[in-house]
């Protein structure tokens, strides 16, 4: 699968990175010092404007930079949800003061971020959230509960959506906060998933606080800000994201498990956690299991090749599109394209294992990773917005099909909640 970038700027960029690394990479530096050096040079977010810590390059630049760092053997620039979502959101909606305060610590990896969006009662219907932010002087008091926050235990800050006003329509009462997790009113509890792991957390707020100056995009404007965050999430979860291949930024309170950048680079080069099961893994498994000649397996693997490559190519078309409508149209397909890749790959893995598909780590071929991936695959159509929600979004925003009639969009949200409660009572009686 030879691929060529015939755009010469990318070749120039790769040369620049290699040249800079040859002069600057120092495995003996501690991680914060190395990342500071990287950020100062503009490599963390090469696609950001030059006056915001970047280099003003096209958006695919950040992936290219990370590839070159990793190939070189250097610790790649920090990634994680801060880079993926918080930084571009704050860059879009924050004040100059907020950008100055929040973005550099993301770029130099000193502050890690998580998402505080979903609630037990607000999953697909994210705007149905009821976590409350009550203004008190120069701060907001937060009460409520969030769920599905990956990395919350390791993060310093969260992108928090809370309802600042219950007496306006549903979407109008929401605000977006840069919320510090390092305070007493916050309780982060790991949430165990089907895989047996706890990648996600529940987060409880009991009179937690956030200063007024950490409200991003203005009070009651959180829904508009959220659209930006979700756009960058979709692009990232879909086949085109580049930050998934980057080391997570700032571990909580600035404590890094590795003492030097060199050790951290080595640790990052060794994959950990439930590794993705991709086409080459399955082709190797088919050979190992003596099933490479099985026509049904060949048919399925060829279909997986089609899904994988078209997913990658469509994501690429989104990146190079010269009009925003096309870029958006293609980016919005990333998530559903990814679902079918994950589910088919998981299914083929199980199929190839035969009876060993019943095993679980540590038993089973390759430490049981195929079984674990199969369990994980059931979530691929759920996390980051269910496939049902993705299809709603695609059909409405791209294809222009009508929204469905729902409860009043103009009624104060307090009334909507009350009427919902009444319906629920009736239907369980």
């Amino acid at each position, binding site marked *: 699968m030879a691929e060529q970038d015939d755009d010469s700027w990318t070749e120039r960029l790769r040369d620049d990175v290699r040249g800079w690394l040859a002069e600057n990479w120092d495995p003996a530096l501690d991680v914060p010092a190395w990342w500071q050096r990287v950020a100062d040079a503009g490599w963390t977010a090469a696609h950001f404007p030059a006056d915001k810590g970047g280099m003003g390059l096209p958006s695919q630049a950040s992936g290219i930079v990370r590839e070159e760092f990793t190939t070189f053997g250097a610790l790649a620039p920090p990634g994680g949800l801060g880079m993926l979502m918080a930084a571009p959101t704050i860059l879009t909606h924050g004040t100059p003061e907020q950008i100055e305060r929040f973005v550099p610590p993301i770029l130099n990896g000193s502050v890690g971020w998580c998402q505080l969006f979903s609630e037990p009662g607000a999953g697909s219907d994210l705007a149905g959230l009821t976590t409350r932010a009550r203004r008190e002087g120069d701060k907001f008091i937060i009460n409520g509960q969030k769920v599905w926050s990956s990395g919350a235990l390791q993060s310093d800050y969260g992108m928090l959506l809370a309802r600042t006003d219950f007496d306006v329509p549903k979407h109008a009462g929401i605000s977006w906060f840069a919320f510090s997790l390092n305070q007493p009113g916050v309780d982060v509890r790991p949430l165990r998933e*089907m895989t047996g792991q706890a990648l996600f957390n529940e987060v409880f707020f009991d009179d937690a606080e956030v200063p007024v100056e950490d409200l991003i995009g203005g009070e009651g404007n959180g829904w508009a800000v959220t659209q930006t965050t979700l756009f960058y999430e979709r692009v990232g979860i879909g086949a085109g994201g580049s930050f998934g291949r980057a080391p997570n930024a700032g571990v909580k309170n600035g404590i890094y498990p590795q003492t030097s950048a060199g050790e951290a680079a080595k640790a990052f080069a060794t994959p950990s956690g439930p590794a993705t099961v991709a086409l080459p893994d399955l082709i190797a498994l088919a050979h190992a299991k003596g099933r490479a000649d099985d026509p049904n397996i060949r048919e399925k693997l060829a279909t997986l090749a089609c899904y994988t490559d078209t997913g990658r190519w469509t994501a690429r078309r989104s990146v190079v599109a010269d009009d925003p409508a096309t870029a958006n149209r293609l980016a919005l397909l990333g998530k559903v394209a990814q679902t079918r890749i994950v589910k088919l790959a998981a299914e083929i893995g*199980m199929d190839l294992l035969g*009876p060993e598909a019943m095993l679980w780590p540590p038993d089973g071929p390759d430490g049981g990773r195929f079984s674990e991936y199969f369990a994980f695959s059931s979530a691929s159509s759920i*996390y980051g917005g269910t496939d049902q929600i993705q299809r709603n979004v695609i059909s409405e925003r791209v294809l222009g099909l009508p929204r469905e009639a*729902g409860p009043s969009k103009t009624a104060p949200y307090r009334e*909507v909640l009350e009427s919902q409660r009444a319906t629920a009572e009736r*239907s369980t009686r």
Partner: protein
Amino acid sequence: MSFVTTDEQKALRQSVRSFLESKSDEAAVRAAMVSELGFDRALWEQLAGQLGLAGLAIPEEYGGSASSMSDLAVVMSELGRFLVCSPYFASVILATNAFLESGDKEVCLAYLPRLAAGELIGALAVNEQTAELAPDADTTTAEQGGADWTLSGEKNFVLAGLAADVLVVSAAAPSGPSLFVVDATHASVERTALSVMDMTRHQARISFTQTPATLLGEAGAAAAVLSRVAEIAVVALASEQAGAAERCLEMAVDYAKTRFQFGRQIGSFQAIKHLCADMLLEVEAAKSAALYAAEQGDEAGAEATRSAHLAKAYCSDAFMKVAADNVQIHGGIGFTWEYAAQLYYKRAKSSQVLLGTPGHHREKLAACSGL
């Protein structure tokens, strides 16, 4: 085909269901599945004793109640519905039928009455590299010294392997693959729990080192006996799958009625409604396949074989699909450890693979259909 449910079968289902509702709720399942042997002995003794279910498949001459496959299918579908952690399938279906199909009256008389009473738990140790009860590739060997046999080798994927008191084991004898009865607690038998995805169904790897064994039936007859045992077992398993699948649909529909998003029950959205309708089609088609195979299953023959393959192929994929759809309809909470949807999802996968993948059975079905 009659598809007529007798009043006795209705009563049987009702009694098993009420029993399991009180004795094998989700908390009980979770407790049993993390226990060392993977089942609740008290529950087993009540199933066998109070309800008399261990002897269903056994003729009266050996102390059983000689029920039909259709009766057994009723029990299996309820066990599936409640995800019961039990050696029932291993002992009552697999081991018991291996005894019966061997035609060895002497050995049957020695074991079946106690299996029928639930005093003994049996398991069938045949699989090594495959899951299809095909003893032809056995590397486990049987040696004869005078009238005595000893077995050496290793068996894999043995259901209820740790729980069992007595094992029916296949091994390569000079005259071909043969079946033997082995005391599971003998010192030369080494049993290791496997780490399995579906914790409601424990499995073991069992090794034998010159383990004393009793020949079951005729030497060299294992392949024929096991072929019929596998046929009976997949029909029972298909009923279990159909019962579990039906429960997944109920969970999904219940959740869709009580979960609100966008100010509406999510079950009012067409995406969810149509998914539920498709689940119903799968569930009812699976039930039809399992019922038909059970009706055909009492006597060996071409239609018994064909319908068994069809039932296992269809019910496996139907249960897997419905279990996955159930997770999807629940959204995030369906993916959590603490919610029951994941237990069904994993059970669906283990059931799908057990005794041969759907692809394996579709190939056999094609061969039975003039292809």
